[in-house]
């Protein structure tokens, strides 16, 4: 964190039961060294670990105390929120060494040792011309799983970015750096007013600051996940580009104030594009970001659609498809939802869902005007055009019965450009069988399961 700085630790140096073997990384936040365990075997200690040294040299007692507290928070956090995709923090050790002034008093975090970070992976992949990094989809799914666990346990990570996502030798992912992790009570918690500018959502710029810190909500991680996904799938490009941090902040401002559209990298596979657009919702009341719990099945679906995230070839095929439909709203995921197999048997029960038509003159109008009618799709995976719309229409205020939902199918945008790729399967009112209502045509979020995918 801001209080610490890089420090040099000699190879062979002993800290507790650990012997420093080699440097890994350094920054103004401190230094990380590899170490091997020297104590008696067993006891649950791994043979190797990463030691993060946070220097307290030159700090006033108050700041040193803050640093030690922050380190202990990381250990407490790790023990409380243990998960296969969260890096483990085993213990903290305070160095006592009066011979080495720089090291004396340093706080050491003993952590699970990883191979490298996603930031290294992006650098190695060769930059923006290289397209998606290998296995981007599965990596993102693991990150999403870790976030689901965190959020379910009542925590927000607060500093998600490729540099804080580590890779183990077996290719599995570990979220790291819980220095900004915040406990959520109700809808939000309060965390330190810190973060990585390129990964912070626009609301952070207008959030007032209280003595407890700045309000932190789970949607903070969803935004950062969207930025990280964009980078992994486009060879490192940020969704809000610019040569300087200030230029990128200005691009974000233009988007969040509605003066510029979201212009994501053309490299992105279409399934992922829809997901990232939702993660990067400007978080207005009209369009909240999805939760990580909502996102996880969509991540898995996108991985199924693009097993190796081969973006270019897919993109070319998609363009051909789109020219045929003539509507700018259709961006099919190229996924099994395109099959008309969904009109299967009914679920045992359904949940009421109210139709919402945002168009001027239709909102709140119950006179069933022809201009205000809305359609139900026959197949949410196909372009939304006349042949794919049921004869039976619905209007604002109608109550339908939904029994399941699909994510990441054809994208529909309403008259204000708010779009969704989610569809609810609904019983056709006054008729037989099922139709599909686009999620932009309702404000409800019915608790229905994901529709079974055709085999």
């Amino acid at each position: 964190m801001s209080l610490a700085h890089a420090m040099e630790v000699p190879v062979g140096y002993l800290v507790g039961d650990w012997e420093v073997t080699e440097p890994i990384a350094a920054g103004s936040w401190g230094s990380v060294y590899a170490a091997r365990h020297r104590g008696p075997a067993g006891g649950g200690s791994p043979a190797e670990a990463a030691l993060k040294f946070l220097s307290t040299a030159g700090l006033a007692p108050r700041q040193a105390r803050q640093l030690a507290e922050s380190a202990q928070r990381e250990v407490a956090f790790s023990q409380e929120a243990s998960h296969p995709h969260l890096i483990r923090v085993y213990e903290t050790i305070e160095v006592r060494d009066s011979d080495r002034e720089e090291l004396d008093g340093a706080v050491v975090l003993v952590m699970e040792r990883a191979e490298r970070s996603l930031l290294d992976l992006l650098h190695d992949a060769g930059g923006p011309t290289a397209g998606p990094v290998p296995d981007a989809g599965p990596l993102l799914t693991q990150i999403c799983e870790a976030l689901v666990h965190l959020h379910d346990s009542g925590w927000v990570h607060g500093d998600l970015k490729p540099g804080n996502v580590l890779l183990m030798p077996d290719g599995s992912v570990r979220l790291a750096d819980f220095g900004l992790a915040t406990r959520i009570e109700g809808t939000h918690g309060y965390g330190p007013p810190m973060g990585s500018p390129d990964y912070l959502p626009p609301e952070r710029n207008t959030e007032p600051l209280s003595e407890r810190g700045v309000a932190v909500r789970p949607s903070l991680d969803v935004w950062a996940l969207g930025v990280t996904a964009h980078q992994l799938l486009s060879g490192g490009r940020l969704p809000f580009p610019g040569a300087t941090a200030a230029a990128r902040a200005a691009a974000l401002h233009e988007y969040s104030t509605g003066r510029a559209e979201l212009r994501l990298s053309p490299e992105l596979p279409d399934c992922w594009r829809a997901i990232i657009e939702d993660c990067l919702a400007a978080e207005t009341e009209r369009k909240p970001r999805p939760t990580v719990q909502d996102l996880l099945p969509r991540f898995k679906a996108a991985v199924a659609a693009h097993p190796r995230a081969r973006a270019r070839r897919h993109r070319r095929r998609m363009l051909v498809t789109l020219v045929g439909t003539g509507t700018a709203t259709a961006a099919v995921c190229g996924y099994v939802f395109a099959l008309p197999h969904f009109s299967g048997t009914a679920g045992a029960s359904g949940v009421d869902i109210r139709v919402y038509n945002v168009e001027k003159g239709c909102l709140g109008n119950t006179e069933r005007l022809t201009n205000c009618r809305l359609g139900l799709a026959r197949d949410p995976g196909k372009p939304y055009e006349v042949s794919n719309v049921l004869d039976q229409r619905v209007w604002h205020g109608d109550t339908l019965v939904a029994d399941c939902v699909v994510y990441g199918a054809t994208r529909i945008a309403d008259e204000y450009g708010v779009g969704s790729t989610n569809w609810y399967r609904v019983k056709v009112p006054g008729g037989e069988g099922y139709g599909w209502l686009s999620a932009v045509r309702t404000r409800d979020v019915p608790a229905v399961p994901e529709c079974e995918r055709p085999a």
Partner: protein
Amino acid sequence: MGDDVTIVVHVPAGSGAAQITTEIGPGDALRFGRGAPDTPVDLVLDDPAVPRLAGEIRATEDHWKLSNFSATQSYLVENPEGAGEYVRVAPRRLGAPVPFEFSRIVLPTRTGPPVSVQVFAPSHSYGEAADFARLGGAATLVAFSLDESATYFLVLVALCEPRLRDLSTAAVPTTPQITARLRRHPACRDLTEQAVSFHVDYLARNKLRVKNNDDAPGRRMDGRREALVSLALRFGLVREEHLALLPARTAGAGVS
């Protein structure tokens, strides 16, 4: 770090204008001049020597640019904290970038004092140079951009001084106490209480965005100063080492 408000424009009362304070974000512009029915302007500077459409202030990223629409007059942009630093913007120059966090645009008048417009750019960023050079926007930063050489920072350090020295819950100094304390600083000999109040306000409103949940109107200023101090100490914005920026305490003249 980016802020939704890039710049704050303030036209002081008098000087041919009513007092106005307005905030704009990146990409937004304000036109200023004498104005006329067919030449509407955002900031009216009512002096016969000021052109109808005199210029434009445009917020750009974290700074601003000045366009001089006059065909004959140069405008000066002074840095009131910069010991005489200024930028001269020639006639018809479009989009001249202004590097100061605090600026005063000075327009010549025929008689009386010049007309001036104050422009503040609170979003200027200051960060850990080494980290930032390496990681850019991927570096984890404190979300405050404080210029440790600015007067507002001296005011903040002076506010925090009693707590930093005693580690007690000593009262936060009042505006007159801070003014007296800082006047012994060579750069602050002319500091007024009004200026100190301005800096406290600027810190709370534009730099730290302090949430004011103090409802009692009489305690409003107190509550805000209190909040500034606890934020600055809690998040390490002001530390013991910064006390060296303050003038030496002379015997018997310390802040009680």
